[in-house]
């Protein structure tokens, strides 16, 4: 195994595996991404549209409970039972989508696709705003992010801006043009939340020179993007603010329709500030907190030359020598750490997929929360921090120590010899300190944990 293929697996994938060979180089990574999504086929996650229970079912059951109120205790209790069952099912689906996420990274052969899925899911963060939606975050990623991240940034952006989870998360569903027909006959009005995050977080970046007026014009332009559980996404002209809007000096036509919204989104998607923002963020995520300016410049150039064709941007990153320098500087985020540990440990997919809700919580969800990355619960639409220092806290390290010491033995019948495990997890280039620690540990469990806790494993 070459140093390049080790890095291909650790820096741009989900780590080394004792059985699945790493990609040999940048070209191999890109060709897998261009090919079929075999991991999604093998370990399916329902899309938002296909998830059950879906939001319609949840709403129907909730309405039945409301209707039963005042009809006596027995009637209300009877109506509550199916709702409770639906919540149990939703909870189980949420655990199952996490398990499938773990397995794809731990056992699949397309690590870059998994890492990109996590990256874009984080870039376009959504959260469940209430319990009815708790199981629909990863299905949103499956429907909106994963099939669209190997094409143009504009089509990814179009998918996100019309995704029900995003429309709900950033309050677009309740934004109504004050002078629209609906606005005129109600006391409801504009909500700027999606417009602001679309410009600040999703595309241009906060320093791109837009103003509060631009945000407000964009919010007016986005009115009409609507969603109900029953109809899914639709454009509602009756809620759209009439008249033309001017965003960053470009005036968009007075016609209130989806084409006008798409025009504005497409312009944001190819804006030079967006090219810079997205390229920098990718380079920071995969390569270094403070990436080589030449690397970022190459990616920006590829973005602009291709009108935001994402595989061209990825290729510019993977083909640049600055992306392959050692020592590794990034610290794996908790999800990446856990998945790469499961991969090195060769935990069987069927074992992960068979975990019940409680075990999933105990072995993965709770520890990841203490590591600092509560699954599907980032603190805001800006997602998780990316810089190494954010993850190197006392409590974060303590949680990684506890997980590494305790969890592997619960997911494998026999733990590997720590000395062999060091080679599996780190490749041929094992630091002396890791060799020493793996050999000197009192137990297999401690030795395996020490390999996982080594900077050589934690950094990527």
């Amino acid at each position, binding site marked *: 195994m070459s140093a390049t293929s080790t890095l291909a697996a650790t820096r741009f994938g989900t780590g080394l595996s004792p059985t699945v060979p790493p990609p040999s180089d940048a070209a191999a990574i890109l060709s897998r991404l261009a090919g079929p999504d075999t991991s999604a086929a093998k370990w399916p996650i329902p899309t938002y549209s296909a998830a059950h229970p879906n939001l319609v079912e949840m709403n129907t059951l909730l309405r039945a409970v409301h209707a039963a109120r005042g009809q006596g205790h027995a009637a209300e209790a009877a109506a509550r039972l199916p709702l409770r069952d639906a919540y149990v099912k939703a909870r189980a689906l949420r655990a199952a989508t996490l398990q499938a996420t773990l397995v794809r990274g731990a056992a699949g052969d397309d690590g870059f696709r998994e890492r990109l899925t996590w990256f874009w899911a984080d870039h376009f963060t959504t959260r469940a705003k209430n319990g009815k939606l708790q199981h629909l975050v990863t299905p949103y990623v499956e429907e909106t992010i994963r099939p669209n991240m190997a094409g143009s940034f504009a089509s990814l952006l179009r998918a996100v801006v019309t995704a029900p989870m995003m429309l709900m998360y950033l309050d677009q569903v309740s934004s109504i043009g004050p002078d629209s027909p609906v606005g005129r006959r109600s006391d409801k009005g504009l*909500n700027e939340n999606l417009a602001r995050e679309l410009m600040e977080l999703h595309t241009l970046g906060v320093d791109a020179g837009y103003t509060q007026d631009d945000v407000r014009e964009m919010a007016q332009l986005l009115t009409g993007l609507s969603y109900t559980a029953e109809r899914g996404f639709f454009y509602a002209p009756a809620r759209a603010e009439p008249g033309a809007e001017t965003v960053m000096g470009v005036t968009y036509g007075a016609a209130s329709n989806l084409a006008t919204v798409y025009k504005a989104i497409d312009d944001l998607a190819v804006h030079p500030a967006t090219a810079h923002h997205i390229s920098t963020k990718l380079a920071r995520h995969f390569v270094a907190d403070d990436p080589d300016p030449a690397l970022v410049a190459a990616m920006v150039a590829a973005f602009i030359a291709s009108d935001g064709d994402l595989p061209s941007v990825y290729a510019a990153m993977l083909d640049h020598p600055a992306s392959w320098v050692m020592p590794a500087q990034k610290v794996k985020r908790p999800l990446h750490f856990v998945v790469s540990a499961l991969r090195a440990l060769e935990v069987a997919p069927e074992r992960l997929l068979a975990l019940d809700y409680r075990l999933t919580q105990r072995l993965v969800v709770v520890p990841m929360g203490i590591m600092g990355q509560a699954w599907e619960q980032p603190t805001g639409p800006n997602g998780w921090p990316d810089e190494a220092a954010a993850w190197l806290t006392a409590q974060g390290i303590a949680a990684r*120590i506890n997980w590494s010491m305790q969890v592997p033995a619960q997911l494998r019948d026999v733990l590997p010899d720590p000395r062999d495990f060091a080679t599996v997890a780190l490749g041929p280039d094992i*630091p002396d300190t*890791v060799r*020493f*620690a793996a050999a000197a540990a009192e137990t297999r469990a401690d030795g395996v944990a020490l390999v996982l806790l080594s*900077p050589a494993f934690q950094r990527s």
Partner: protein
Amino acid sequence: MLTRRRLLLTGAALGCSAAASPWLTPIVLADAPWQSRLVVIVLRGAMDGLDAVQPVGDPAFAGLRPTLAAGDAALPLDGFYAMHPALAPLMPLWRKGELGFVHAVSTPYRDKRSHFDGQDILEAGVAGLGTGVRDGWLNRLLQTTPGMAAETAYAVGVDEMLILTGKAPYLHWAPQTRLDLSAQAQRLLGVLYQNDPPFRAAADEAVRIAQDIAMSDGDTDAAMPGPDGADGTGMSAMAPPPARAPAVADHVQLAQFAAARLRGTTRIASFSLSGWDSHVGQSGVMKRMLGKLAETILALKAGLGDDWARTGVICLTEFGRTAYENGTRGTDHGTGGVMVYAGGALKGGQVAGSWPGLAEAQLYESRDLMSTRDVRAHAGWIMRGLFGVETGVIDRVIFPGVDLGTDPRLVL
């Protein structure tokens, strides 16, 4: 429990001295040079100051907020302002002069109204973005005082606290974390991390905090308030069945943990209370969040015991919200807002600040409560009063360029 036992054995083997651990960076466990305590709570999401402390005496107020101002009756404070009813559990503190507010204040951040930038500017303590300042203002306070040990300052909870990051050492811990590590594994971790200082520093802290907590768990449990709080206000509904371990809410755990540290050698603690972003259905958001804030302050008071008299608590948010209610019974991102403060060391029982008025011409950009003073000035004068920091250090180093103005005398 294996965890506890292994740690206690580790502690015993090391002579119960964390500093004697073979791979810990030596840190002097000295007393801080201060007696006062400062707690800074970051209210993330932009608290609506006009709802928390309602200017019911302003003629424009009710008209700007047709549904929000018509909710449950606010609690009169001084004839002009009234406190949101969810803060009722704090009324005894207000009457004792241990709770106060500063109205119509904000950081210097204007116009873009981004949570993340707003919080970054609040925590960096700077005038705007792009200043090149990368550390937090509480960290710079530590940097300017000699003789600080890491445990002088604690970031509590799982959230990243920019306000405390920087060159000066501080500790970061979530109350629920324990550490299970044998002495040999601990030694080998030291070997692994010897050439990677950031990993070593984080693990050093983890081991030391875990030993400290394990050794003091008994004491802390005794020193902790029960789930009812010392004066039994507000939280009895949360009291679990007595036979089981109490299910203490996260925000109360943060406050209790911070209070326990502040009883010892810690002098500064900071943590987040997140969830104030009330674009939709604000009445529910405020009831929940202000209830949490009240419980948090009461848990700090209960946990601090005698030391409450030497403590100042300040609660800061990234910006206020629009003066007018929006179309979804909420408010959008605004400018001026409220600083909440509490503690036996501070002069409460007042709503300080200069009121700008809510008529359209008095609003900032015809939409937000005008900020009439930089909230950093109040925080700065509180540091001056609690710790004796020179004003020249405050306005040049801790809050570069702030106009401190006259002392609002918030410290007793």
